[in-house]
């Protein structure tokens, strides 16, 4: 019954909304069995891309090809894709069983098969005992499982998931994440997964597509996107919280010597840069640490705010010129302490300054407490 495909091609898929381009020429090839995540902040076009793929939104440009055959003009109900919605979109008047069996009924599957396949799907998501409940009587996590069962019971060629975990609380989210990964491993269903949570995307997907304002920023494996972000925007989104304006003082290939408000550091250029260029050094807080006592050769900074994070402390400090910098340390510093910060040159990524990293400030990964507002609190 399950029909596999070898490639699903998105060829310059675009979508405008009355003059506003929500998605601009997304080109992507998805292999059968692959798990692809579309990642970006809200409004970046990731859900638009998913809805275009589902057929719920017509394209304004480009084509979607399934094994070379155009499918973008086919109605959503005839594409044979399954979809999990952000708010689950369960049919409130049907029982759990009715929800899961709905697609099979639509496909006019024989009654006995409906029962058998529904049972199996409910078993897969561990909801056998709740088959006769209505969605309103279920918890968020259970509703989520119903939505997943409803999407996979038809063994669709492609499963689309639109931020399926964003309505769950933190612990349930982790649990369901593992669940989704497990389902993908055991059923091998090709999946396109939309999320704004980079941790979710990194942990689930085989490949990531990072979007911003409808424009594709980077396509790559989790390792590539995490370790080698294509531009400072992707870097900011992947948790490179420190975006420091620097001047290149010397360049030897990709290895750059940088001047940071008088301090000298070395970093890895992610684009051609030469001596004299202004640039941005991107650094994760966890890659920046205070130097041990001794001849200090790091960036001088003054500790301002200290947050306890269990195994370590998250610290906001200020550079000599007043710019904030974030780092992690195992030893508790006191506000006002002077520190010298050092970093592995391999982990200092240097980007040209021309992409505004508007997202760096407002979406600093998933760590709490880093909001710029906190600066005013401490003396």
């Amino acid at each position, binding site marked *: 019954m399950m029909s596999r495909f070898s490639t699903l091609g998105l060829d310059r898929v675009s979508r405008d909304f009355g003059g506003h381009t929500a998605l601009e020429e997304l080109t992507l090839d998805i292999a059968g069995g692959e798990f692809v995540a579309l990642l970006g*902040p809200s409004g*970046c076009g990731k859900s638009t891309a998913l809805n275009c793929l589902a057929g719920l939104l017509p394209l*304004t440009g480009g084509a979607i090809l399934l094994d070379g055959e155009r499918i973008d003009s086919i109605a959503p109900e005839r594409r044979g894709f399954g979809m999990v919605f952000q708010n689950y979109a369960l049919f409130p008047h049907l029982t759990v069983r009715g929800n899961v069996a709905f697609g099979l009924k639509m496909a006019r599957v024989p009654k006995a098969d409906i029962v058998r396949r529904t049972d199996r799907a409910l078993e897969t998501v561990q909801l056998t005992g709740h088959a006769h409940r209505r969605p309103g009587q279920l918890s968020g996590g259970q509703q989520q499982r119903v939505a997943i069962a409803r999407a996979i019971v038809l063994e669709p060629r492609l499963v689309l998931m639109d931020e399926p975990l964003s309505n769950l609380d933190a612990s349930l989210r982790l649990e369901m994440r593992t669940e989704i990964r497990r389902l993908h491993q055991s059923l091998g269903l090709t999946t396109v997964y939309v999320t704004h949570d980079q941790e979710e995307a990194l942990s689930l997907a085989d490949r990531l597509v990072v979007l911003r304002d409808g424009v594709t920023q980077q396509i790559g494996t989790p390792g590539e996107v995490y370790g080698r972000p294509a*531009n400072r925007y992707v870097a900011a989104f992947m948790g490179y919280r420190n975006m420091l304006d620097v001047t290149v003082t010397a360049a030897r290939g990709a290895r750059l010597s940088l001047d940071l408000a008088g301090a000298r550091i070395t970093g890895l250029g992610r684009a051609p840069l030469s001596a004299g260029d202004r640039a941005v050094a991107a650094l994760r807080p966890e890659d920046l640490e205070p130097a041990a006592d001794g001849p200090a050769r790091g960036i001088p900074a003054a500790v301002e705010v200290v947050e306890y994070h269990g195994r370590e402390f998250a610290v906001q400090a200020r550079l000599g010129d007043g710019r904030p910098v974030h780092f992690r340390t195992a030893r508790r510093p006191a506000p006002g302490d002077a520190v010298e910060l050092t970093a592995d040159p391999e982990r200092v990524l240097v980007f*040209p300054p021309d*992409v505004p990293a508007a997202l760096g400030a407002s979406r600093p990964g998933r760590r709490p407490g880093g909001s710029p507002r906190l600066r005013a609190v401490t003396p």
Partner: protein
Amino acid sequence: MTRVREHPPPPGAAPRASASRARPALRHRLAERGVDRTLLLLAPGAVFLVLLFCYPFLYGLQLSFQPQRGGGALANYRAFFGDPYLRETVWITLGLAVPVALVNCLAAVPVAFRTRGPFRGRRLITTLLVMPITLGTVLTAQGLLGYLGPGGWLNKTLLATGITDTPLELVHNYWGVFASLVITGFPFSYLLTLSYLTGIDPGLEQAAATLGASKRQRFRHVTLPLLAPGLAVTFCLSFVLAFAVFPSAQLVGDPRGETHVISIEAYQAAFQKFDYSLGSAIAMVMAAVMTAVVLVVLAWRSMLYRGATGGKG
């Protein structure tokens, strides 16, 4: 999230194809603006209303300029405004409708305010308040004639308790119609006020309470300003209902004198004298007067805050 459109393509991003896309098909462009086949569902209703609401209205307007007895296009209007007996109907009707609408609105606010929250017996109370809708004009009229009449229970009580010496004259005059309009109109203004009131987020009042506002201050400075636009609409609807008073003016009023309202004249012209043209003209005058009053109230309303009230959408 910022949605900056004009930014240079980032390095390392998928190259932006410079070839301009073909303009999307008309059907798609229309669909983008919300015009698609779903709108056909509107067609039966719209056609029906154009045929049975707009067309008759325009037909009546046109008819009103073609007097049956000749005398030029404006003869009907001249006849209406030239005759003091006819002209007076506008003032009589306004004199009924404005006070009735005011009383209904003002009485509805405290009652709705009391009954908005959940309490035991709320269902019964609201049902009782809404019940007069079921009475119908005739029962109300019969009841008023009997109850408020010279020998009715009210006058009997007043006389028995010595509050008055002579029976009050409450029917077959202005007050009979007034009472009838309040009884039938109050449930509407109450329900409307209630629905506006429940649309205001109770959190706002609680917030004001935490800021030290007393109950009266909260009502005066939080609830009332948010309710005022709704009250304006309520007033308009009560006014319009009362302005079109017809059967009760005949049954409990004094249809040739104190309650000689405009709708009686319109009806008699059209269906008793069979002067459809004059009847239409009077109906148009009615519509014009109502529109004028409603516009005045709505103009006042437009000066009020009319944004979200935080409650139900």
